[in-house]
């Protein structure tokens, strides 16, 4: 256990919702609007946490468990991804598998909570969610496997440390392919354009939003906060691959500040990229999405082949 990473963890818990503001303000910039206030997501969370709740009569404890299990899983996933110059709170060989399956647990409970309402809209969202994530999961794990191949480690923290400029020079193709695949996974898992449109207001076309239609009050707050953390943690995974390995400036505080601000800058940049993507392209038709995901899977598989025989 690496307690040095506690500040990073607290930073993540505090700053994750801010990424949403960045995305929304980027979109506003493209649309020529003023955009939401900088701390809008925090106001939203605050408001939701102080509301009562309305539960559907159809639902059972599974519906109430969904947001809690989801938030807890993504919080634990957060402890496995390094931020700044120190390894993650928990890191061990094979944590990449646990990371993927913690997100799987979050999804499982979000989906069964949605089905618990007995609403056909939520059923529709649920089936899309499980299909797309079933296709995104191989892309994620195979992508991580090919980084494991290049860096000779199965731990995210060690991968972050091992991806140096030399590695980029020797196996740049592999890493580029993985990063491309991971960006598709990032967009899919976080329900962003071109897979899902968080701004849509038609239940028939939603994926993630429609699954949480019936949640209200603190439950919905947990869901929104969990979604923000998921955006952070999957984004961090990509940023970790792109950011330089541990910098050493002699003074640990300075080193931490520099690498943390690099990572934070990377995340904010990623949020700007997401906002830009959302502004300049439309979402795909639902039947096209599997093609995009299979494409990402193929990229990951290709990177594995490249890493083995090309690199």
């Amino acid at each position, binding site marked *: 256990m690496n307690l040095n990473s506690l500040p990073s963890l607290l930073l993540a818990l505090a700053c994750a919702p801010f990424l949403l503001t960045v995305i929304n303000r980027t979109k506003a910039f493209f649309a020529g609007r003023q955009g939401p206030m900088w701390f809008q997501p925090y106001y939203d969370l605050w408001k939701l946490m102080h509301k009562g709740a309305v539960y559907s*009569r*159809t639902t059972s404890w599974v519906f109430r468990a969904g947001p809690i299990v989801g938030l*807890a899983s993504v919080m634990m996933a957060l402890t496995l991804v390094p931020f700044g110059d120190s390894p993650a709170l928990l890191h061990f*060989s094979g944590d990449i598998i646990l990371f993927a399956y913690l997100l799987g647990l979050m999804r499982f409970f979000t989906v069964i909570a949605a089905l618990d309402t007995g609403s056909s809209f939520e059923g529709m969202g649920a089936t899309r969610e499980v299909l797309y994530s079933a296709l995104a999961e191989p892309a994620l794990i195979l992508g991580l496997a090919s980084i494991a191949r290049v860096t*000779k480690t*199965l731990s995210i923290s060690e991968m972050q440390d091992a991806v140096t400029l030399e590695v980029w020079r020797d196996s740049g193709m592999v890493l580029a392919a993985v990063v491309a695949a991971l960006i598709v996974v990032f967009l899919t898992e976080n329900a962003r354009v071109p897979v899902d449109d968080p701004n849509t207001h038609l239940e028939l076309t939603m994926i993630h939003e429609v699954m949480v239609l019936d949640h209200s009050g603190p439950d919905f707050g947990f869901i929104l906060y969990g979604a923000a953390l998921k955006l952070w943690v999957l984004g961090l995974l990509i940023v970790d691959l792109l950011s330089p390995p541990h910098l050493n400036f002699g003074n640990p505080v300075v080193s931490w500040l520099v690498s943390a601000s690099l990572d934070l800058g990377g995340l904010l940049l990623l949020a700007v990229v997401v906002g830009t993507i959302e502004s300049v392209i439309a979402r795909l038709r639902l039947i096209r999405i599997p093609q995009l995901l299979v494409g990402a899977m193929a990229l990951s598989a290709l990177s594995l082949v490249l890493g083995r025989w090309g690199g």
Partner: protein
Amino acid sequence: MDLLLAAIGVLLVSGIASLLVRNDSRQSSRVAATGVVAAAVLGLKPVYSVLSSGQALPTAIYPWSVPIGSIAIGLDVLSAWFLLLVLIVPSLAATFGCEFLKAFAPRKSLGGSWFFYNLSIAGMVGVTIARDGLLFLVAWEMMALASYFLVVFEHEREDVREAGWTYLVASHLGTAFLLALFIMFGQGSDSLDFIETASGTGITQRLADAPSGTLDVMFVLAVVGFGTKAGFMPFHVWLPETYPAAVGHTPAVLSGVMSKMGIYGLLRVLSLFMKIEGFLPPTWWGCLLILIGMVSGVLGILTAVAQHDLRRILAYSSIENIGIICIGLGTGLLGMSSQNAGMAILGLAGALFHVLNHSLFKGLLFLGAAAVEQSTGTGNLNRLGGLLKQIPGVAIPFVIGSVAISGLPPFNGFASEFLIYFTALREELALTGASAVAALSGIAALTLIGGIAAYCFTMVVGIGFLGAPRTPAAASARPVGLLMQVPLWILAAACLAAGLLSPRIMPILAPAVENVTHLPGIEISRYLLETGSESQDIFSAQALLEQVVLVTGSLLLVIIVLALIRQQLLNGREVTESGTWGCGYLKPESTMQYTGSSFAQPLVDLIGSVLQTRKNVVLPIGLFAKTASLRTSTPDINREYLYAPVFRGVWGIILKLRWLQHGRLHLYVLYIAITIMLLLLWSFGFGESPPTTSPGDPL
């Protein structure tokens, strides 16, 4: 040893006793189930002592009047590991069955069913402890034939008779391969035992002296013969027919335990091979197992999603899980081929652990499915719904089992899948050539299986147990008896315990891995047991699982804390109930909910060309359209496109030989005479002397 024989005795006696009191159904249930539980208690003592000490009990040999057989029985850790399943799951299923079969009592005599239940369990105990080929086959057939009668319990239904027939045919074809396998084991000896003897005619020596290629043939025979029982694709066709047809509590035993006997047999054969000095399994063995595992896993779970019947879904998911076990075994074998101890040990440990885990959660799910069927009268997902509120005592354990079988933390399914993943990922880095491709494909298959298993079991839970009841039958689900609920809760608790205690299970597994690989104990404890530290590269399975449990344990804590926070937040605020949001539609009907078919539709559409799903669509056509309907069914592709043509072909060839069967007796006598003449000529004139005349002389 004596206790194990006593356990078999108790099983047989209680089975016969239950047959004797068959006129009183309650008595016969009670007698038989008590016998199963008592046998489990008797048997658990030696199993516990072997598993806790890691030392095998000495082999005992009793004389047997059968020519080439002997009653040689032994209990090493590998046997004990599988015997543990044979003792636990069937006794829980028997407890469940006691209550479950009451519904049949007025119109059926239960004695026969219980007799065969106990007989088949005695057979399984025999399979795990037999150390003689003939004894093994006898026990194997006892298990297989007795379970046939369990399958055809409701023989007045035509589909059940059909399923029973399929089972019988498949089982016999499988045994035919095993027969050939054991005859090859006996080459150059007058006995079929698996025991080492000092005189040099022991099994290891015989195998070592066998001509090259013999072991390859034996391996293939074992894969086909044992794979048929385990449910390897494409030898699985009997399985999705049999599990849904068999009566209530028995599929839990068939899938949870009997299919594992196939895995046990394969491992036992491998353990005999590995004893040979300097023997390395060829690379293609591991590749073959990984290939079978991939096909079984991916096609199994894809077909499962396309089914509507609860037990049929579970049957296909069994094939998927056998596939996962097979990927683990194959990875282990690849490790042995490449003399990569870590890979061999971790892969096998993962596979063995998954055997236990699958037995626990599949036992739970099949028992749960039986309880649901009895409570609502249907196992069709599209007719269920809302059961979590109606029968929480069944539904809550079922939900737990579903999370576990999807391989999600903190349950046991994740722990074993983690080991298999980890082995494949870690060793993929070290391998070259064909083995690397195999390991990689194994990883790819595992990720696909994981995602689609989650698809499948969110469907089962979400459609079957949540939402509003879809039919009056589901709405009026009858509560089930306590004896049916308790086994479910025990198994659910076991799933969580095996997940959280997974690091503690590695020391128990380690000697079993040693039994198979015959690698030095120091290597095994290095990869399975040694605790690592922060500074060094941690990779013993135990140390890794401790880290995993640290995360999953904290996960449970965080869940509890968040639940308390929410309770605090909602304290004193308005919490109301209302209808589900229906876009402003005020009269929602339960039939408007998503069904299993509609939930599966996106995936089925995507891969329909692979699964050959049949759609029967009636579109609403015309100006005043009236009816519209959609019906989908996904028959087994192997059955339709592999076996049907093969059997037709065989039939065609056999038909051409029909002129030999003319019905004239004197010509038949002539056939016999000619055959004997030819055999005499072969044995005296041209062939080698038959092995029995020169015992001990290696071929």
